[in-house]
């Protein structure tokens, strides 16, 4: 109600009956967490992941607002997010987890989370970090985001074959690290 004031301002009417706001709000509701999670495991920084998620949705909004049609909003969101993350990683030249910590720069934990979850999350992060980047990315897309190999192929512009091989090798590496850790 405190917000009602500034927002119920008068505005001219929309022409036509397309209302991207509906679609957008629904997409946010459904996928905000997933996109955030995707970015988090690729940039190892909670705050940056939140920003990237926001940017993803912002870009998607721009696209929708222009009146463009989007058949599969989920695929669209992941594509935008993937491009943003690639740019980010290219800019930042992968930093090791260790030096991140030493710079006093923790990946960030949700303040309200219980300690056991924090420990778990840290283990997941550091394990992911040990895996080669190209394998890690597809592992995240397949097993955290739940995308199919063909969706991943479409998203990254690689062939399904290449994706399968990376998945296989990625899982191997993961198994090794989990066994030793």
């Amino acid at each position, binding site marked *: 109600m*405190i917000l*009602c004031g500034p927002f119920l301002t*008068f505005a001219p009417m929309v*022409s036509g009956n397309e209302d991207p706001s509906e679609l957008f709000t629904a997409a946010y509701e459904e996928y905000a967490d997933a996109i955030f999670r995707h970015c988090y495991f690729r940039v190892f920084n909670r705050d940056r992941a939140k920003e990237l998620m926001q940017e993803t949705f912002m870009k998607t909004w721009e696209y929708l607002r222009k009146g463009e049609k989007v058949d599969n909003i989920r695929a669209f969101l992941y594509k935008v997010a993937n491009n943003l993350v690639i740019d980010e990683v290219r800019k930042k030249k992968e930093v090791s987890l260790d030096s991140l910590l030493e710079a006093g720069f923790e990946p960030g934990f949700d303040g309200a989370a219980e300690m056991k979850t924090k420990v778990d*999350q840290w283990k997941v992060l550091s394990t992911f970090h*040990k895996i080669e980047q190209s394998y890690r990315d597809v592992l995240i897309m397949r*097993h955290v985001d739940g995308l199919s190999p063909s969706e991943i192929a479409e998203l990254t512009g690689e062939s399904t074959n290449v994706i399968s091989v990376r998945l296989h090798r990625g899982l191997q590496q993961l198994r090794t690290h989990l066994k*030793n*850790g």
Partner: protein
Amino acid sequence: MDRDLESFFGMAREVALSPAERGQLFAAFLPLLSLGIAGAVRNAEPARHTMQMSKSDQHFAGQARHAVRLSPGEKSAVFRSIQKFMKDYPYVGSESRQTSWSIVDLFAQVRLMPMMASVLILVLGLGGTASYAAQSALPGDTLYPMKIYVNESMRSTFAFSPEAKARVESARAQKRLEEAEVLALETRLSPEHAAFLTSQMEKHSANVRRQIERLQESGQVEIASEIDEHLNTSLLAHDFVLQKVAHSRQGARREIAVLLKGVRTVADMRETDGGIAIAAVAMDAANGEASATVALKQETVADEGASSSIIARAIVTDHKAEAKIDEAHSRIAAVRSSIESRKNGASVSLQSEAKIVEAESALAEARIKLRTGSSGEADTLRKQSLRNIEEAQLFMNIEQKLGAEGNKKERSQGAASAQLKHAQKKIDDAWALFARVGSSADAEAKLNDAKAKLAEARIKLDASLFGESQDLSKAASKLIAEARSILTAAERSVRQSDIQHRIDEAKKKAQEKKEEVLREADRKIQDIVP
């Protein structure tokens, strides 16, 4: 996919945004959505300048009225955005599970507080900007009542879980103290204000305590302890700040004394009320060692002149060290895999193998030390492990250069000798451990057995019976490993009570420190208010 992988990805999938974060991040889009709805402007007929001005005026007015209005679809879309924002953005990370809201529901919630309802209507009428401005109001300002009775009350109302309520009330208590400090610095702290702020602070602190008890009862002991510590530390910090302000604004001394007395009372109450009890219970409840380390570190947090609250970084420190150990671990794995990938892997000297085994055991010990609180020893062991890895790599490089082939006899001799040396080192360590931990007939028997085997192995080695020597060394190593695990288990239980003892010590020290601080404050108050 096997279970380990499943559980790994399961944990990964649990990462999510908190409701507060979701709401905050979505907030950026709200203004856009309103604009978006209004994005495409309907082509209203332009006003025609005709001679019949009045008619076209009317016509234009009609058009304007028609155009400048939200369609029903737009209205509900905007409102749904706001609903969503309201749902996702409670003031504190509360667990409100309300799925459908309407203004009616809102009033239903506050129906029991008729004054609140009328104030709400007032707020709606004002369009919300006044309530926003009230945020920085101080006692004596016109908008101050709105800050306390509207803004803060509303946050309190929408905090549903005990945890959320506790955090809200804690923030309110601290806010009152901040306001007092600012007022005093501006020499606006009247006796009435001082009395009011003190009683409000006491009221909110009591509310916090009540919620903490509820949290304890419902088993959320860690959160209860965290909130308790946080508030306690803040109160002490404000104590110091108030004293400092009193020194620089002599005119406000009496009023500040009132506040200090209030803070002292609350802090005191909280101690005897079982603030310590909470910490002890939290330690039992959680995974023993990890939270024990946290508790130990929190106890030694100092708050000299701190103007903002301090939250223990213990967890991060532990993880930092743990991460380093993991890194060392992966290096060992890398070295191992490079051994395996060599074509003539079988001929890689056992010397490097032995070094790697040493590295692994040092690392395993480092982990145990870390988890039982000896981070210094853990780091030493970790570094030792790294040195072993480097030596192993060095051996491997040398062997490569000299060529994989060598005298078969020499290799066996080297292998047997290395095995024996390795086992001897292990048995020395095990005896040291035995000396520390004490009685275990089982472990002792195993170690003695191993000792005998090693003596025999030496004899066989000297007699060039390398195969037999190696077998005996291996058998001895196995026995030593068994003995070690018995002893480490025994050690762990000794450590538990050791930790307990250290926590008690730390608590006593913290208690003494607090008492000293309060005595200091007392003395200072005596100076100010004789």
